[in-house]
């Protein structure tokens, strides 16, 4: 059984996002610098995502697009400068901006066009500034861009003119985007701008291509989207900072009173507060799905961890958000949220929502949750319980009751009686269920304290003035002009080369196992086995009569005690079927004539006075090739004898050696250096008994000049299989049947 709860229970509130303390506090991230120098795109930067949807005068985002191309020219007489910029507004398709929403610095100036999936307008990038006598030279960029395809990107073309000496020509341009990138909204299944953070999360998860669709809990996602929508938690922001997706999901969910959960392996957002079917915060009496008592909890199955004092002390939450007027640039606002009479002078904890939050109520409710959970959520619990009716029904996020008797005083029983929210479920093969629970505080009416506090929290509704009263730098009538920007999509002037900028590696390699074995290097700690020399046949193959010895220099030691073995031809090592044929210090062995087909092994042992027989453990050689060939047929070891000069058949023990029985001459013949047994020419002798005792002699001269006699003498006086190189299949082959001699094969002295 595996138990995967490795994390201490004290980490649970942090892992669930209940306790998160900002590591650093800084200026509001939603603030834009108006009077800065125009920025340029740098390769490798993330393409920004403008994600917003302005509804009921809430929402939208102010962005400062970077330039990719520029064209700079001047009038040859007045020196008036004309600046054209190609700008990247966002990834994806954005509805057309309104004329009143485009700026350079804080001024509504210039001529603008907007396109999707292409560059905008046909002008060519370049610097064609000329020097005008008596005028200041325009020091404009010389590297003006080359253009690209702008696939799935919304682009802007900006044109403006500047009088001689105007130093604002290189100032940043800005746009107020009311309707951001189009996505398919989960709530109405419609393609269009969205301000729902769940839509943004789904877009990013899907675009990351690392998450199968089957592992998304879309029902839970839709419920979470309904929750944020019903409670006015909207995302209106620019997403342009490189992030880890998991980190971003964890971080952003907390600011929408959501949390990321994995339920049955499927990822989803889940509200941190109880909700009604319509997505609103549930402030009625909470019911629970199961009550755990002493009957369910296993021995040592109760573990409790109280949240530390540092995370419980009252704070004043400073909530940063962005007030976004309809006709002006947004301003950052701060709302302080605290309990009455608590943390009046701090500590202050800043929570910056200004990057995406344009609703005061949103900021206040998140702040209310942060200060309330410090006050009321006191502990977490881990239970090990036996399976029961809950086993098939209990799911993540359910509310359960734990009611345990504490009998520690005489005549008085106290109760551990709280509601909890199920944070983790671990089911084991043994049936034991482990639950991680977080305290779910309720009031006397059975309502969720946090839900009531958050639901009732609301902002002041006060809108601060922007502090701007002078709009004279705007072009006339721009401030109230809601007309959309014209569009003018154009192909790239100079398509990138190579066209796709990619290198596709071939994917035609099938992994395969490694090839034939490569022998490992010998272990220097192990003695090398002795090697056998003395074979006079081809490639050192031993022949009957050869004197076998341990090759010089391969002895395991001086004075090695040799034990010679003849083993069956199939043997790869000395085994019980082998026969010890000779032994002694440095002794050699002469192959018997009837040893064809057998292998020779030598076992070497070194002197060891501590051993009972005076010699130590054995080291065995490898076997020689079979004597006379692999199966005894390849009797002759000489591949191509210089000559096979003589043969005879002796008529028997009584007959003189050298007598050639002419009636058998057709039985053997020579063809050049190779001796054959003729097929089908054997004539049975009329007196087999004579042949039975006959000898066959063959004499040949090996290439090294050695004259070799092969005879049947060693077989006991009759011709047998071995002495005929295995051609005979009967130890008494002369019974008269031609089949007794398989003459289809050469009697190979080759």
């Amino acid at each position, binding site marked *: 059984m*595996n138990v*995967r709860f*490795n*994390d201490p229970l004290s980490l649970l509130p942090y*892992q*669930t996002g209940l306790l998160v303390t900002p590591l650093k506090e800084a200026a509001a991230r939603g603030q834009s610098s108006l009077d800065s120098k*125009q920025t*340029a*795109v740098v390769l*490798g*930067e993330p*393409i*920004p995502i403008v994600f917003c949807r302005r509804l009921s005068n809430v929402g939208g985002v102010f962005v400062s697009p970077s*330039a*990719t*191309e*520029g064209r700079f020219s001047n009038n040859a007489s007045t020196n008036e400068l004309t600046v054209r910029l190609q700008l990247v507004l966002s*990834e994806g398709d954005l509805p057309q901006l309104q004329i009143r929403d485009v700026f350079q610095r804080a001024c509504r100036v210039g001529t603008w066009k907007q396109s999707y999936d292409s560059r905008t307008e046909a002008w060519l990038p370049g610097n064609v500034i000329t020097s005008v006598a008596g005028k200041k030279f325009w020091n404009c*960029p*010389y*590297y003006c*861009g080359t*253009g690209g395809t702008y696939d799935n*990107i919304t682009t802007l073309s900006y044109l403006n003119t500047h009088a001689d000496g105007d130093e604002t020509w290189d100032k940043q341009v800005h746009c107020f985007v009311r309707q951001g990138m189009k996505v398919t909204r989960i709530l109405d299944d419609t393609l269009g701008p969205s301000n729902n953070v769940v839509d943004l999360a789904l877009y*990013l*998860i899907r*675009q990351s291509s*690392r*998450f*199968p669709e*089957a*592992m998304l809990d879309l029902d839970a996602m839709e419920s979470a989207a309904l929750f944020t929508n019903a409670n006015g938690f909207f995302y209106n922001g620019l*997403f342009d900072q*490189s992030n*880890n*997706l*998991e*980190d971003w999901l*964890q971080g952003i969910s907390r600011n929408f009173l959501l949390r990321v*959960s*994995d339920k*049955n*392996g499927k*990822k989803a957002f889940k509200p941190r507060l109880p909700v009604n079917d319509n997505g609103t915060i549930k402030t009625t009496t909470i019911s629970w799905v199961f009550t755990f008592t002493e009957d369910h909890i296993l021995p040592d199955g109760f573990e409790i961890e109280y949240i530390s004092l540092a995370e419980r002390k009252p704070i004043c939450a400073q909530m940063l958000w962005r007030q976004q007027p309809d006709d002006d640039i947004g301003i950052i606002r701060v709302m302080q949220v605290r309990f009455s009479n608590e943390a009046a002078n701090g500590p202050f904890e800043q929570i910056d929502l200004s990057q995406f939050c344009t609703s005061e109520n949103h900021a206040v409710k998140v702040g209310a949750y942060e200060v309330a959970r410090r006050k009321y959520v006191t502990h977490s619990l881990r239970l090990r319980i036996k*399976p029961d009716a809950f*086993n*098939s029904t209990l799911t*993540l996020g359910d509310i359960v009751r734990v009611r345990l008797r504490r009998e520690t005083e005489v005549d008085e029983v106290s109760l551990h009686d709280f509601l909890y929210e199920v944070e*983790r*479920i*671990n*089911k*084991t*093969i043994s*049936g034991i269920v482990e639950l*991680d629970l977080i305290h779910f505080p309720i009031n006397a009416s059975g309502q969720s304290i946090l839900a009531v506090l958050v639901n009732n929290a609301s902002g002041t509704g006060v809108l601060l003035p922007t502090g701007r009263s002078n709009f004279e730098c705007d072009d006339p009538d721009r401030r109230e002009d809601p007309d959309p920007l014209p569009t003018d999509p154009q192909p790239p002037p*100079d398509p*990138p080369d190579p066209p796709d*900028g*990619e290198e596709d590696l071939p994917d035609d390699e099938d992994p395969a196992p490694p090839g034939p074995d490569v022998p490992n290097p010998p272990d220097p700690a192990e003695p090398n086995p002795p090697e056998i020399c003395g074979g006079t046949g081809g490639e050192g193959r031993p022949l009957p009569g050869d004197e076998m010895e341990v090759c010089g220099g391969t002895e395991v030691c001086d004075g090695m005690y040799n034990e010679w073995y003849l083993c069956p031809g199939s043997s790869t090592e000395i085994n019980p079927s082998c026969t010890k044929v000779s032994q002694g210090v440095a002794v050699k062995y002469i192959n018997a004539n009837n040893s064809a087909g057998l292998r020779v092994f030598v076992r070497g042992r070194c002197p060891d006075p501590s051993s009972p027989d005076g010699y130590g453990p054995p080291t065995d050689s490898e076997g020689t090739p079979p004597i006379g060939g692999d199966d005894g047929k390849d009797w002759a070891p000489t591949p191509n004898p210089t000559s096979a000069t003589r043969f005879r058949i002796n008529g028997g023990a009584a007959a003189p050696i050298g007598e050639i029985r002419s009636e058998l001459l057709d039985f053997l013949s020579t063809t050049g250096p190779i001796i054959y047994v003729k097929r089908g020419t054997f004539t049975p002798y009329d007196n087999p008994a004579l042949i039975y005792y006959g000898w066959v002699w063959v004499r040949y001269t090996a290439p090294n000049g050695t004259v070799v006699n092969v005879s049947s003498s060693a077989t006991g006086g009759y011709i047998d299989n071995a002495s005929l190189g295995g051609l005979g299949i009967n130890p008494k082959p002369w019974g008269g049947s031609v089949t007794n001699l398989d003459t289809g094969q050469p009697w190979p002295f080759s």
Partner: protein
Amino acid sequence: MTNRSQAQYLRIFNENTTYTRWQSYYIGTTVTWQSASWSYHPFNADGLIGGTSGSDVGVSIEVPATSTAVQVFTDALSSNRLCQLLIYEFNSSRQQVSPPSNQLLIGSYVGEVTGISGSFSLLQVQLGSSLAPVGAQTPPRKYTNYLVGAPIRL
């Protein structure tokens, strides 16, 4: 008297194809459940069925390292196949021949095969999410020459 038993079912699949259906309760038998055949293969699974993302949520499967198992899980790992674990509970004091029609689903988990480890004879297969807790993944697209050429230098 209730004799509570659990039967575990494992399915490896992708969008279009189911590659493997195993069950580990009915030894040596192929059973039919939910109109599909589940062949016997020994394995044990347990772990976090539900939890907060990033808190080691996932399921671990122990399986003998047979050639079939090695092939099935390494293919799943290489090809990003999904693995679904189903845990049913039922009263085994009745028949034990085939899955009872009234067995209750007490656990379900869908995950990718995120890791395989173990010994020569035993594999431990981790199911979870391939969403890496480290590394930048968003925004998903970056500026390239293909998209914007050689950008202006200001």
